[in-house]
């Protein structure tokens, strides 16, 4: 390739101008022929991380599937804001059944496609399932684990904004410790969500030893596109867990969505990695280490930690959790330190 690596960082960010890249390396979104699978005009909030993540993920999947893709969608923000009928933003065949059954619905779609292909009634059509963290880590978890365990030919994408935002910001099993939600209010001796609870579904997905598991954030959309494309190149059960900041639920400014996603990655709060058959095969290294405080301060859901008497101990516990991620996943390059 005919470019100098220095060009990538010339603006001080990860921004990569497409003109600097070879044709095959250019972003799906930069392509005039992109499908706009989740089209404009939907009713997501300003700065919605989920809408951004879904747009990139599904267009990348469509690109990889050569336009032959069916999506199953859990109940939740993405479902509601994209289909206030008679309007729909979906330019692809799309089905919403229930809150907790999306992985199973996708299994059924994949099974039907397999039979139709055997009969010569259908070409190769691929399946994605998508849901928020509530629909994935809580109510849809049984169906998700079943789909993983059977290694059904489905790419499941979880848009994790750390709570039930569609119903008014209640706690889910993906809500981080100390965060304020409508059901973990910042009151009492231990304000916000409890420590020592919750689950990290990417690790559980890896325990199923499925072909591919990855995490991503909307701060690095090229990485997201790469992971979706890679997942679509494989068969069997695949899982991508995308951190998508929610301005409403997190009490953050709309323009800070990307910044927050980047800080989640740079602080180690949210490890960005990929794994095949249960083994981590790659991590996105932290480029400029940041204290978790930088991430927390931008969000009103943590405002109770920064009152007149800052909750130093709680902030330290959150920092310790981030440090643990950094050690566990090897998020820091030794040379960078």
């Amino acid at each position, binding site marked *: 390739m005919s470019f100098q690596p220095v060009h990538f960082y010339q603006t001080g960010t990860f921004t990569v101008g497409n003109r600097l890249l070879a044709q095959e390396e250019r972003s799906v979104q930069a392509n005039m022929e992109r499908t706009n699978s989740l089209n404009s005009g939907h009713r997501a909030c300003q700065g919605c991380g989920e809408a951004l993540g879904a747009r990139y993920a599904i267009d990348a999947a469509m690109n990889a599937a050569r336009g032959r893709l069916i999506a199953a969608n859990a109940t939740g923000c993405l479902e509601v804001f994209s289909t206030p009928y008679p309007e729909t933003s979906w330019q692809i065949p*799309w089905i919403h059944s229930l809150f*907790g059954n999306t992985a199973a619905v996708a299994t*059924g779609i994949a*099974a039907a496609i397999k039979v139709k292909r055997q009969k010569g009634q259908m070409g190769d059509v691929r399946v994605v399932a998508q849901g928020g963290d509530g629909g994935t880590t809580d109510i849809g978890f049984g*169906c998700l684990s*079943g789909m993983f365990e059977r290694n059904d030919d489905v790419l499941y994408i979880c848009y994790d904004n750390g709570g039930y935002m569609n119903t008014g910001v209640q706690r889910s099993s993906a809500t981080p410790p100390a965060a304020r939600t409508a059901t973990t209010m910042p009151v009492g001796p231990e304000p916000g969500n409890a420590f020592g609870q919750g689950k990290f579904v990417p690790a559980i997905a890896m325990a199923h030893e499925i072909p591919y598991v990855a995490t991503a954030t909307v701060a690095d959309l090229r990485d997201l596109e790469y992971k979706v494309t890679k997942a679509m190149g494989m068969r069997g059960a695949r899982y991508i867990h995308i951190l998508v900041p929610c301005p409403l639920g997190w009490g953050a400014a709309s323009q800070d969505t990307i910044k927050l996603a980047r800080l989640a990655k740079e602080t180690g709060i949210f490890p960005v990695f990929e794994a095949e058959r249960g083994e981590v095969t790659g991590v996105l290294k932290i480029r400029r280490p940041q204290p978790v405080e930088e991430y927390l301060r931008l969000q009103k859901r943590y405002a109770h930690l920064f009152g007149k008497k800052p909750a130093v101990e709680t902030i330290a516990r959150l920092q310790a959790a981030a440090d643990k991620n950094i050690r566990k996943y090897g998020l820091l390059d030794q040379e960078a330190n």
Partner: protein
Amino acid sequence: MLKQTEGSHAVAEAVGLCRPEVICAYPISPQTHIVEGLGEMVKAGEIANCEFINVESEFAAMSVAIGSSATGARTYTATASQGLLFMAEAVYNASGLGLPIVMTVANRAIGAPINIWNDHTDALSQRDSGWIQLFAETNQEALDLHIQAFKLAEEVSLPVMVCMDGFILTHAYERVDVPTQEQVDAFLPPYEPRQVLDPTEPVSIGAMVGPEAFSEVRYLAHAKQMQALELIPQMAEQFKQIFGRDSGGLTHSYLVDDAETIVVAMGSVLGTIKDTVDDMRSAGEKIGVLGITSYRPFPIESVRTALQNAQRVVVLEKSLAVGIGGVLSTDVRMAMSGLQLHGHTVVAGLGGRAITRKSLRALFGKAIRGELGHLTFLDLDWNVVNKQLERERTKRRSGPAAESMLRDVGVVAARIG
């Protein structure tokens, strides 16, 4: 071909002949033998081009069925009892989306107390789910109804539940006539979906519908069931032409024309009732039977026509609407509106309690003599009930009721059969 076979296996063979494309299953008694049979047939290649999926719950079973049916595959599953309740949310969703899934319900009681034996409370709990519900009287009819169910489901684009009595039918070995593939192919055309997830013609299915159209969409579901009311007798007629058997239809009546007393019931108990009626007819009683095959849609007109010249109606049902009495009787009474006749609800056979000819004869005799009340629990052991009520009156911590009552009953096996 005539065969001596188990009811479950007869159903599995019938489903196999319908050329299913996706079958998903989760085990629950007494439905297990059906899906075991199908699983083996798919694995052995006897059913070609079919995916058999062992899922992790009944909720997943119905959800997989929703996905595959929406992608244009002929889809089948089976369940019973707690399984039907566990999938209830998806049961409503399948009919709401208008997906022609066929499901066997091997009728079984609902707990607590946990009980694996037959009654109809499972299927009747889903009477408002929007599914068509057909009740088989015999194993032959169970087999035949499955073939009709696929055709009916796909014609009106609604799911169909074929209900057959758990154990009494599912596990009974009887002679059944298994049709040929040619016969089934002549009756059942390939599935042509009304809506399908297809990348060449993308649609959104399952969008939110607000107050502006919700009533209309729901009314359409009702209208489709009313269409099914017309279609079900037509399909039974077409079926007869190809297979040479009377099976299905809305109702089966037996000696009702001159009957002063008509017993209404569903499922396999109709056989015992008919035997009892034969005995009573030879003793000079004018008594007949009306069997309901199509519970949803409920054939109000057919029932009304059958009952209009009778003096009394006894609805004998294997279900209990706690707090009022009957489930089926409520619908039968709707059909009786304006007719001057005595109506009796009899709750019988709950959790597998045997319904004997002796008990039925005594019961119908009481009805004829005008001694039967509005609501009767057939063969209820009042000693056991009263003892428990007394215990609860006298002791605050009276303990778990079912366990205390079982202790009072003593030997459990003595109560079955």
